[in-house]
């Protein structure tokens, strides 16, 4: 998948012109929000439940290495094979080699964000192994070669006409229809045949429980259950931050995750694997591989502040909550993760140099922070990344600000360092700034700051500073006293 995070501004402009999509973005997020709020309303104390979610994820991150070891030990004792990989290449290579070795012709896949990140599908297909995404939305997105529009509904924006045409072309839809339900059933029939004969299934992992060595998947469609039950080989891929201390913690997070995602008390299926099938079982995996992917996370982990992004449980609530996402949708963010979640995650995974626009496309309104069930403070992370750019941090691959901006702030900080300099500067700048003023308001200007005025006005600078006026007042008063 081509990474387009550097084209954010152009892509966003393009998306803004898609009227149908914008109508959709007006209609759906309020519904999602209502459902989410109703879902949280079923908890006895929703704010405490969210604070507890934050505490669990904070603890999981603080104890990450220890919990990973505990998970590995227990998962291995349960008969799973745990494989560690440094990056996308190693993870993809392991899965590709395994598939080759087992003579696999095709795999079915449950939605897995980390394999979007590692572009596993492309690698497998390059090596002649067919990949079938089986989550309906992910299936449509895959066939259209698009990134997920929304993490929970990856193709929820795609118009039915487009889905119909796609299904006619790709899955031999016989009776063209615009009914989403009939289209869904057509996909069901098509993918059912894949599930029926599949020999290797690939899934993601929502949570990996250290205490028991168990992996948990949360879903509504049943495609993950099929992918884990039908084939004799199961590969579950997890980024290394998925680990949770105990089963009780995991269940609390599942409560939050489902409510935050879709407003459900519980998703239709929550399946928990603690090892391959036993000998006497007829379905389930004979071999179960857990592929742990680092892909830059151990580096992020070194920074205690940036580490906070690793708390994310991928509920997607911040997307529909974000006033920017609600205008442009998910494609403009240019990679697997969109919305505020992507804005905090992509910069540390890809490097600040490739994601400059992402953490600047925010007014720091904090809507994301207020609904995050695990207490991620997105706005403070945006500011943190911006400060890294200014401080020229090589670890984050920061990028210098433009020359003019740097000079401007250099002069600014110099000018602000002594009162006389500041006053002099104000006096000198006043005629320049006020040259475009009409009736005390500046509505437009030319030059580099022109863009700022497209939707905003600035009051013109006063003719006299407070100090000037104060001095003048003092003089008048003292004169008045004299004449008395």
């Amino acid at each position: 998948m081509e990474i387009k995070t550097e084209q954010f501004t152009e892509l966003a402009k393009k998306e803004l012109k898609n009227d149908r999509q914008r109508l959709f973005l007006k209609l759906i997020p309020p519904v999602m929000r209502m459902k989410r709020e109703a879902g949280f309303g079923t908890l006895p104390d929703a704010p405490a439940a969210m604070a507890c979610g934050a505490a669990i994820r904070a603890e999981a991150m603080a104890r990450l290495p220890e919990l990973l070891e505990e998970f590995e030990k227990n998962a291995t004792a349960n008969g799973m094979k745990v494989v560690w990989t440094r990056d996308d290449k190693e993870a993809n290579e392991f899965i590709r080699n395994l598939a080759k070795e087992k003579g696999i012709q095709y795999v079915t896949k449950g939605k897995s964000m980390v394999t979007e990140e590692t572009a596993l599908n492309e690698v497998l297909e390059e090596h002649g192994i067919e990949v079938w995404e089986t989550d309906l939305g992910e299936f449509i997105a895959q066939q259209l070669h698009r990134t997920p529009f929304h993490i929970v509904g990856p193709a929820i924006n795609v118009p039915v006409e487009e889905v119909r045409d796609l299904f006619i072309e790709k899955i031999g839809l016989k009776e063209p229809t615009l009914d989403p339900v009939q289209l869904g059933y057509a996909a069901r029939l098509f993918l059912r045949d894949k599930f029926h004969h599949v020999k290797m299934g690939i899934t993601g992992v929502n949570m990996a429980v250290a205490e028991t060595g168990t992996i948990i998947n949360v879903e509504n469609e049943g495609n993950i259950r099929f992918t884990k039950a039908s084939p004799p080989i199961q590969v579950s891929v997890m980024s290394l931050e998925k680990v949770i201390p105990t089963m009780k913690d995991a269940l609390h997070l599942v409560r939050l995750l489902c409510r935050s995602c879709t407003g459900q008390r519980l998703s239709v299926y929550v399946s928990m694997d603690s090892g391959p099938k036993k000998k006497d079982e007829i379905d389930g995996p004979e071999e179960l591989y857990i592929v742990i992917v680092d892909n830059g996370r151990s580096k992020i982990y070194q920074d205690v502040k940036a580490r906070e992004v690793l708390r994310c449980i991928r509920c997607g609530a911040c997307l529909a909550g974000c006033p920017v996402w609600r205008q442009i949708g998910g494609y403009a963010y240019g990679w697997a993760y969109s919305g505020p979640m992507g804005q905090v995650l992509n910069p540390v995974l890809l490097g600040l140099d490739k994601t400059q626009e992402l953490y600047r496309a925010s007014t720091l309104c904090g809507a994301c922070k207020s609904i995050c069930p695990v207490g991620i403070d997105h706005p403070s992370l945006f500011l943190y990344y911006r400060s890294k750019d200014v401080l020229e941090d090589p670890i984050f691959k920061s990028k210098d600000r433009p020359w003019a901006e740097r000079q401007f702030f250099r002069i600014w900080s110099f000018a602000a360092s002594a009162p006389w300099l500041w006053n002099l500067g104000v006096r000198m700048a006043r005629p320049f700034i006020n040259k475009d003023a009409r009736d005390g308001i500046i509505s437009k200007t030319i030059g580099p700051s022109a863009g700022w005025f497209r939707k905003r006005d600035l009051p013109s600078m006063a003719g006299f500073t407070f100090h000037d006026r104060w001095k003048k007042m003092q003089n008048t008063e003292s004169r008045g006293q004299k004449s008395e």
Partner: protein
Amino acid sequence: MEQSVRDEILTKLKAAPKAAFPARPHLPPYKTLSMDREQLIAEFINRLAEEAVVVHRAKDFPEALEKLTVVALEEGLKKVMATTDDVVLRLDLPAWGKKNDIQVMTPEDFPDRESYRDAVFDQAQAGITGVDFAVAESATIGLVHNKDQARLVSLAPILHIAIAPVDRLVPAYEQVIEKVFGNKKHYPSQFVFISGPSMTGDIQGVLFKGMHGPRKVIVILVG
């Protein structure tokens, strides 16, 4: 090589600065925890209805079998797949099948995964299973998968009929987790929570049942 990757990653993580984490806040108990038996049952049934699950209540197993016969007639069942868990065994489905002219298959009838998959995907009009747990909190049923509770029976057929003894109903997930994961030596290979029929809203947000798994779930509550 793998060992070294593992060690490299863990060493890196361990070398990172340590951070404090907040204490867990006090959480008030779920309201289902303070309910009595009848309230729990009522809560469970009401929530099931919200999930569009059809509920039948039977006072005992013979009555449950009668309910099953009615369901089979309504749904036009001729061929079903049933698990062999302790709940289903109490119904003696082979005898019931003979009497009602319904072919009852079990996973044990098949010598290998292939033939079993053919049957459960293409032939079974319904999957009949017992449940190990019923949870009032979200009207969820819990199945412990093992040789008597094969995974695809509750998943592949378009109709899932679950037989739930009332004494297996608990207020919240914690009670289930305690029982399933309480004994360190005996974790099931898979445990699953099921809340209603399979569904999706992936095309334009239009919700519908029966995406990949069952389109319909019927719960027969016994006791």
